[in-house]
């Protein structure tokens, strides 16, 4: 008996219920059902791509890296926002898998949603290091980098793992009722840059101190529960709130600037 025969004998099938809707047509929404073979290691994305390749090529899916790095394949799997490429069928322990588009996002088609509003909220947080010192970008004055201790990095490191997949945004109950609420992703990113010792912006807290800003978080915690990268956006929001309430003091010491000489570059070392 060869390996192929063993594989065929052990092949199992799963029922995949896929949400179908085309915004351009007024046909309404419905679910299509497919019987898909799977193995122990088959992910939901693999199953959907099998459907697209061999059963119905019109099924719309967004995906890219297939390794939970790009955050493209977020969808609601059996009622919970998850990355399809990071969810194995065997781990779901069910005979039927229901795939639906992410809630709180406008649907473009089938499982593909519009991230424009989500990214607009992200951009409104000014998600980049802001410094008053222009020498960093002045090439005539040499190259600089900023010294940060491991403790400094620990304050924001987990929040920098965000891949902007939108799962936390789709799980947030406040976003469901208030579309002007920036959402957990954007607020956690605000904390990420606020806690960064290289950032010198004085206006970060003002950006989220709005009627529809950080105070509308109900601390449901569902954002942290669904994050595929282990980020805790609810923690970032509460930390940011504690600074705004004055419970925590902003004792951030600006990062020391380190001049990097050409010799240092060559020797892979730096001088303070």
């Amino acid at each position, binding site marked *: 008996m060869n390996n192929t025969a063993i594989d065929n004998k052990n092949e199992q099938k799963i029922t995949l219920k896929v949400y179908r809707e085309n915004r351009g047509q007024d046909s309404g929404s419905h679910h299509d059902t497919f019987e898909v073979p799977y193995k122990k290691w088959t992910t939901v994305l693999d199953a959907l791509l099998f459907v697209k390749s061999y059963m119905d090529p019109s099924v719309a899916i967004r995906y890219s890296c297939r390794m939970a790095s790009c955050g493209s394949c977020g969808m609601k799997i059996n009622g919970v926002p998850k990355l399809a490429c990071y969810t194995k069928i065997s781990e779901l322990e069910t005979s039927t898998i229901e795939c639906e588009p992410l809630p709180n996002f406008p649907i473009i088609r089938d499982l593909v949603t519009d991230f424009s509003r989500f990214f607009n909220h992200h951009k409104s947080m000014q998600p980049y290091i802001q410094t008053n010192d222009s020498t960093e970008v002045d090439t005539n004055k040499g190259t600089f980098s900023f010294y940060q201790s491991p403790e400094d990095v620990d304050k924001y490191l987990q929040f920098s793992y965000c891949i902007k997949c939108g799962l936390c945004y789709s799980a947030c109950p406040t976003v469901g009722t208030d579309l*002007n*609420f920036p959402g957990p992703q954007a607020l956690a990113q605000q904390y990420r840059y606020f806690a960064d010792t290289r950032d010198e912006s004085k206006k970060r807290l003002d950006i989220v101190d709005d009627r529809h800003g950080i*105070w509308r978080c109900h601390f449901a915690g569902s954002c942290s529960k669904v994050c595929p990268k282990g980020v805790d956006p609810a923690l970032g929001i509460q930390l940011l709130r504690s600074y705004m309430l004055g419970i925590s003091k902003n004792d951030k010491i600006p990062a020391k600037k380190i001049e990097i000489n050409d010799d240092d570059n060559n020797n892979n070392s730096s001088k303070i």
Partner: protein
Amino acid sequence: MDLMSCLECNESVKMANRTILKESQIMKIHYITGIAAIFVVALHIMMRLVVPFEQSLEYDYIIANYKNIIYVLILESILVLISVHGFNGTRIILLELRQSRAWENMVTVVTISAMIGLIAYGTRTIILANGL
């Protein structure tokens, strides 16, 4: 539509900058009044428990309470703290229901007016019962 919601979002930020109090200041007041109300209401209940429950509801006993300046101060504190906390909470809930400049302004004006009205009416009652 997404562009509109973004513009509306920016407009909301600008509008917030024009308000008398920042949202963080309002929320500080909200949390402080909430915590303070717990203590004052607990004190109010404990003061009622010094006599049997039926007696605490008798007309003469209640009027006598209103003559007690400490009790009056506690009642006024409860009135102010619960009104500020409660109406701000109502404002927050209503702000999440709909998002538009007109709605937000209307909700803010109505809740502040109701809060002032209730405090004024309650204070009037306390003053009349006290016989000042």
